[in-house]
């Protein structure tokens, strides 16, 4: 079987990607070691690698769009009936394509960084080390284990149609979620590479250079995590939005370190503090993107034995070890020569607040890291397999995250170096008034939706207080700021902080006050939840069967009446044929006070259906907070554009 020319070109591109990266790595090392300069050769090799990645992507997309099922990957992630949009997103539908996307984005980011920051000479070659080593590794993995453009063996007939993508993943949210996460992960490569330029070449500008890219990485990673959570809530139909699943934690771990870095980099910019600590954080954050991928891709979480069955896991582990040895080896050997302003006075200054911020983020990272990897350590050390679930995280995260939230609401008013100033005291007074007001406001709202106003978790009480406590001084800050200085990155940061508090209110309320019950509804017989002032009525038609594009839907219409009017919900079960398990489309009645969701759990007969009803107060605050944070971050990105 002769492959079509784009597929052939793609295969060629994959080799170009691998060899180009290898040459870029070799010549970068040569350049750093020898006196003669090899930097332009290294740069050209790297560009070859970039072009190679483009060709591979082109080959794969061509195969996907022309339904070339002689390619194994195409046959497993796409089918003829798949909508066009999901043919494109089938690119990252599985391991092989995921590796290709990762490699492609590293090329893209590194190319942009090299051309934008005009890197030359030994800075360029020390910068290229990390991207080209990572590209070598990923393209090597693709060539050896997971080639996205490999054909079926000759022994097998080419299938007439592919298996296609899991219907659950055929959703705009899920199509965009993986590339956003990958953008965040690969974005971290750039600040980490700048850290290496500082370690090897004393590039004193490294923090200034990496901040720009850190902003983008943080933006993409945060958006990716939020979109994933939004998708889980709206599409999985379980009424949950965060499950503390290893896959989710894998994206949270680099995020926590990156957030810590984004803050401590501020202290470096203002006062040249924490240089070594900054280097450590960003190198560790990059390491965690590898560890996260290793955890989710090698199957090691299921069992150490599952891991040892595939070689991929060993390669990943090997690469992580090499990376950690080199990165932290460079850091250790250069420790003394790294300039660090250690003049840290004992006072309530901004730099000390950032120090505690870093401690708390590191603490959350440790909690998530050990919670996620404990099953591995336990199985290796004692042979006993254990499982760590959501209760662990719900118990350990609040005691660390709540102090972080308190810090978040006071730290912006502190000044560098100096002790507490007049502004701080003034804002504290305004803040307390605002805090009490918002506390009373949320208590009143809770009582209006059937919850006791005086009874909630301390976390929820605290977050409702902190919102007003931060919001009022923030408003004053915005009003007082002079026109020309309006909307700089400091203001962007304040907006992000307010967003985080919105999110925290939603998160704490939905954990504490989540109400879930089973309801069996018969046609036109009302089901009343007295305490919550909610009434459900299934309409007279009962169960309706409708055929969709590639599924048949079993749906009902249920009228939900509550304090703010009625809405007809249409929960469904969708059957996608024998290859896939059916999916649940939940009905959602949502306003800012609470979300009422209705998911079909069992069809008893044509007129009698069992539902799972979930009521969660303030759940919308999670998405509102997320959007506010992202907008705040766009302000930061906009104001720090150079």
């Amino acid at each position, binding site marked *: 079987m002769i492959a079509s020319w784009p597929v052939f070109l793609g295969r060629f591109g994959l080799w170009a990607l691998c060899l180009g990266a290898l040459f870029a790595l070799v010549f970068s090392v040569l350049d750093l070691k020898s006196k003669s300069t090899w930097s332009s050769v290294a740069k050209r090799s790297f560009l070859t690698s970039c072009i190679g990645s483009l060709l591979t992507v082109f080959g794969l997309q061509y195969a996907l769009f022309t339904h070339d099922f002689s390619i*194994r990957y195409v046959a497993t*992630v796409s089918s003829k009936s798949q909508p066009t949009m999901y043919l494109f997103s089938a690119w990252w539908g599985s391991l092989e394509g995921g590796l290709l996307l990762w490699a492609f984005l590293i090329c893209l980011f590194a190319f942009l960084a090299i051309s934008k920051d005009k890197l030359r000479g030994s800075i360029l070659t020390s910068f290229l080390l990390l991207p080209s080593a990572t590209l070598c590794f990923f393209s090597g993995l693709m060539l050896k284990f997971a080639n996205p453009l490999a054909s079926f063996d000759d022994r097998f007939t080419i299938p007439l149609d592919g298996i296609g993508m899991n219907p*659950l993943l055929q959703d705009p949210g899920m199509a965009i979620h993986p590339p956003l996460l990958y953008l965040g992960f690969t974005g971290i490569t750039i600040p980490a590479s700048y850290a290496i330029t500082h370690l090897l070449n004393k590039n004193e500008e490294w923090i200034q250079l990496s901040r720009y890219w850190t902003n983008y990485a943080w933006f993409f990673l945060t958006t990716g995590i939020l979109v994933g959570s939004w998708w889980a809530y709206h599409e999985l139909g379980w009424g949950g939005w965060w499950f503390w699943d290893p896959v989710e934690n894998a994206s949270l771990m680099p995020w926590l370190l990156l957030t810590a870095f984004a803050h401590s980099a501020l202290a470096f910019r203002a006062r040249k503090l924490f240089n070594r600590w900054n280097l450590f954080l960003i190198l560790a954050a990059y390491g965690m993107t590898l560890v996260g991928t290793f955890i989710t891709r090698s199957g090691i979480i299921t069992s150490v034995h599952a891991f040892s069955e595939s070689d*991929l896991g060993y390669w990943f582990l090997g690469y992580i070890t090499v990376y950690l040895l080199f990165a932290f080896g460079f850091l250790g050997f250069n420790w003394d020569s790294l300039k660090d302003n250690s003049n840290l006075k004992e006072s309530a200054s901004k730099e000390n607040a950032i120090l505690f911020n870093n401690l708390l983020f*590191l603490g959350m990272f440790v*909690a998530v890291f050990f919670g996620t990897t404990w099953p591995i350590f336990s199985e290796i050390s004692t042979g006993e*397999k254990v499982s760590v*679930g959501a209760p662990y995280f719900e118990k350990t995260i609040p005691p660390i995250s709540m102090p972080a939230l308190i810090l978040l609401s006071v730290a912006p008013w502190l000044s560098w170096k100096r002790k507490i100033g007049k502004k701080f005291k003034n804002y504290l007074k305004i803040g307390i008034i605002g805090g009490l007001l918002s506390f009373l406001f949320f208590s009143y709202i809770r009582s209006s939706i059937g919850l006791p106003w005086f009874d909630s978790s301390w976390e929820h009480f605290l977050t409702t207080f902190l919102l007003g406590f931060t919001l009022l001084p923030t408003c004053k800050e915005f009003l007082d700021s002079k026109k020309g200085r309006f909307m700089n990155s400091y203001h962007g940061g304040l907006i992000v902080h307010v967003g985080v508090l919105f999110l925290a209110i939603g998160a704490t309320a939905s954990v504490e006050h989540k109400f879930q019950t089973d309801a069996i509804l018969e046609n036109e017989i009302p089901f009343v939840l007295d305490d919550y002032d909610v009434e459900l009525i299934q309409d007279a038609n009962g169960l309706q069967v409708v055929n969709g594009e590639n599924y048949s839907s079993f749906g009902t219409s249920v009228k939900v009446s509550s304090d703010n009017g009625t809405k007809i919900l249409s929960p469904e079960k969708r059957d996608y044929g024998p290859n896939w398990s059916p*999916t649940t489309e939940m009905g959602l009645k949502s306003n800012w006070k609470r979300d009422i969701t209705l998911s079909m759990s069992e069809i008893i007969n044509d007129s009698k259906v069992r539902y*799972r009803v979930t009521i969660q107060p303030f759940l919308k605050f999670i998405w509102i907070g997320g959007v506010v944070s992202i907008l705040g971050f766009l302000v930061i990105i906009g104001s720090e554009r150079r």
Partner: protein
Amino acid sequence: MLSFLEKARKKPATMNRTMISLIMAFLAILWLVFSGIQDASLFFYFPTEVEQSIISDEMEQDARIRIGGFVQPDSISIEDEIIFFVLTDDERGVVRVRYEGILPDMFAEGQGAVAEGMFPSEVDGGYFFPDEWIFYADDIFVKHGEEYSKEHLDKTEMKKRFGSGIPSGTLE
């Protein structure tokens, strides 16, 4: 080599209260994490291991555990809103599971699932018959994330369609 370590030993850092409180806080967090892990981690078994520990009389009753495996095809039955199914694994161990409640979407025969619950010593006032060793689950999970993709399709289903020409790295 590693001069930074030697230096730290020679010259004891003058610790101010900021550093001391940082270290104390970090130790508190470590304590929180490790005590939390001890309390919250559940033992996890594959069906074969459950069978073995029942045979060797090591399986504790009334202890919360998790059992993970594949749902055996044709094993799901529903009696009076109580769901029964069989979890199995590659080594053909089997555990009967009893579950009352709503099953997650991705739960299906041939798919991976994890059941959390216990082998009770007493059921509704009556004695539990140890001979039967039915696992009373109160929570069922399916694998999240990447496993939603075809990687989680039953291996046999894949083999039936494609023979062993399955892309490497997608099933194991």
